């Protein structure tokens, strides 16, 4: 149980960002019992209706999803020519959106896997919906290369399936590595998310009053009954999945960056791309987690579980990865100059001062300059400011991919083949529509599934320590816990 803290307002702790030497900050506020956590999380999906903001958001998201459906069907029935692509610029909005969405997904895996391996207990408050976000983001990402192939009806040619032509995919191509990386990433993320969901689905099953909920949650809970013999294998499986997902998540955006880095194009052919893309992915993903967490905790009353400290920590990650991205931008320029390759030098000068200077300026100011404001704790802990800055980062990271892809393609070796890219309404509609798909899925998830990993949150509560609050019982198991010790 947390001690009396100076930052209480009317007996309720609202700010747990303060560091008190010798104690761990509480990760669950104003709740001492496990039942309170179960109630706070379960009541969202058990309520008869959702907050009005949910309906408004859902209507908007469905509308955009309709736009996506229309644009995709129009593209399929007409041809890829409905996009603004031209001869040197054969990749533009589509691949920008693909890289953007794959990148968004990375934060979920980072939170669920890497922070798990590092024993960062604060991940438990945010991992569930960050993982859900990963899955929905990868779904959005998958659409773009899928429809960009042109003849969607033979999209199975991407996979090594025996066919009547006796042809196989070309395994020396990074585009094919991407097929394997992204599909593996989606599968493993889904498994990870679902494995984590099982105990919480069992909670909803056991609390369900209606027959439909009992059957629905019951089927997906797989008959989970909290057996410790099961928990033993479950925890081991979870650890192994985290250990497998960690190199996987680093590999996915590295492979995405190979799509560019393995080519010969100035501005793409860069060895810094894999780490730079991974840092950028985590940066944009965390920004998206903040964008989603801020309204979600307000809307569903989860401020005691997704606390200010969680948001503060995420903003610190944004600051770190934003600075890494800034370093990568600077290093790209340095290497372009240092390489002495004239095309490489031109590509970078052109990126900053050529026909896409405005996109470059937007990218640098959104990704490098504004996140530096997170050095100040007042900004890191201000809800409106962090929400605004997370949107800025999302915009900036979209433009980063646009700048890399389009500015390099538009002005390559021969000035006679230079072109300018102008998006069509289909380009813009598909981009906006992908957000519709993402938010539709996310809002449905918030409404019907446990948004917070209840079992995992309970584990990090002081009461979960078997020696909690009882010195006399500690003698068998090493040091006794102190009455206030959050040493779980």
């Amino acid at each position, binding site marked *: 149980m947390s001690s009396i803290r100076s930052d209480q307002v009317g007996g309720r702790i609202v700010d747990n960002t303060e560091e008190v030497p010798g104690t761990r900050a509480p990760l669950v506020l104003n709740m001492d019992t496990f039942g309170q956590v179960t109630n706070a999380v379960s009541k969202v999906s058990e309520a008869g209706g959702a907050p009005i903001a949910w309906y408004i958001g859902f209507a908007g998201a469905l509308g955009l999803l309709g736009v996506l459906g229309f644009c995709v069907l129009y593209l399929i029935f007409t041809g890829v020519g409905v996009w603004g692509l031209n001869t040197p610029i054969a990749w533009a909005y589509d691949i920008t959106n693909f890289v953007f969405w794959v990148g968004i997904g990375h934060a979920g895996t980072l939170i669920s896997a890497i922070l798990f391996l590092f024993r960062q207990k604060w991940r438990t408050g945010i991992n569930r919906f960050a993982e859900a976000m990963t899955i929905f983001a990868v779904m959005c990402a998958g659409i773009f290369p899928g429809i960009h192939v042109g003849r969607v009806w033979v999209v199975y040619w991407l996979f090594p399936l025996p066919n009547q032509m006796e042809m196989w995919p070309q395994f*020396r191509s990074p585009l094919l590595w991407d097929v394997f990386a992204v599909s593996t990433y989606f599968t493993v993320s889904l498994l990870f998310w679902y494995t984590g969901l099982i105990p919480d689905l069992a909670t909803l099953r056991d609390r369900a009053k209606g027959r439909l909920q009992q059957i629905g949650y019951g089927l997906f809970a797989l008959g989970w009954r909290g057996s410790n013999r099961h928990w033993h294998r479950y925890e081991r499986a979870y650890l192994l999945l985290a250990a497998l997902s960690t190199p996987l998540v680093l590999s996915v955006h590295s492979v995405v960056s190979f799509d560019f880095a393995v080519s010969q194009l100035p501005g793409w052919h860069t060895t810094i791309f894999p780490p730079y893309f991974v840092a950028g992915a985590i940066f944009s993903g965390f920004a998206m987690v903040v964008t989603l967490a801020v309204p979600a905790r307000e809307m569903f009353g989860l401020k005691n579980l997704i606390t200010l400290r969680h948001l503060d920590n995420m903003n610190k990650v944004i600051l770190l990865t934003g600075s890494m991205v800034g370093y990568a931008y600077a290093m790209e320029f340095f290497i372009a100059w240092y390489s002495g390759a004239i095309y490489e030098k031109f590509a970078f000068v052109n990126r900053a001062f050529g026909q896409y200077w405005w996109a470059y300026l937007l990218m640098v100011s959104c990704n490098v300059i504004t996140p530096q404001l997170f050095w100040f704790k007042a900004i890191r802990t201000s809800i409106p400011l962090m929400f605004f800055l997370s949107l800025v980062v999302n915009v900036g990271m979209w433009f980063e991919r646009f700048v890399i892809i389009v500015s390099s393609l538009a002005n390559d070796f021969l000035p006679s083949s230079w072109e300018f890219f102008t998006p069509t309404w289909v380009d813009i509609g598909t981009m906006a529509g992908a957000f519709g798909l993402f938010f539709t899925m996310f809002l449905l998830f918030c409404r019907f599934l446990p948004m917070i990993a209840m079992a995992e949150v309970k584990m990090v509560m002081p009461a979960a320590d078997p020696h909690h609050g009882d010195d006399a019982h500690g003698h068998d198991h090493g040091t006794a816990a102190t009455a206030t010790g959050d040493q779980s």
Partner: protein
Amino acid sequence: MTTFETPTPTVDPAETTETPKLHALIAEFETPGEVLKAAEKVREAGYRWWDCCTPFPVHGMDGAMGIKPTILPVMVFFAGLAGLISAFVLQAFTNSTGMSIWALVWVTGYPYLISGKPLLSIPAFIPVMFELTILFAALTCVFGMFGMNGLPRLHHPLLANDRFRRVTDDRFYIVIEARDPKFFRSRTEAFLGSIGAVAVEEVQD
């Protein structure tokens, strides 16, 4: 729960008894500390068919119950190895050879010569080898865990018990099954009461 109490003639005669069969006794505890201490005593008492059911894994419980480490990591390792080898064979066969083999259907390799790169280009095959290693290992990890845990199952006697519903919320249970050689209805009930259970209840099959 009541629906399960009438034995129906469709049940295998060998399994049927006159009255509903006792599946287990469950003992409820209020805190992780209490259930952990109680688990040590159940183990010391020599029970074998018993379990602790908790809303989250209780730290130290595996040791208290004497659970042997799972072989899951070994399975995952070999699955990963299988993924690595499959990916290499797949790529080498399809892109580097002109062989025909039977793999559910007859398939023939197609030796691609691209930009003068070697036909058997191992560095280029590494990304897919890595991804399939992870994919096979992760699938084995999750489905191996389900399989060894006997999941999914649509019904379990414990899940029909109303008291047991709080196992996924905030209560901790020790379950001693009736098939345990040391199980004796009244003695086991008294034993569970003596180790600190706040309630002891029968669970029928």
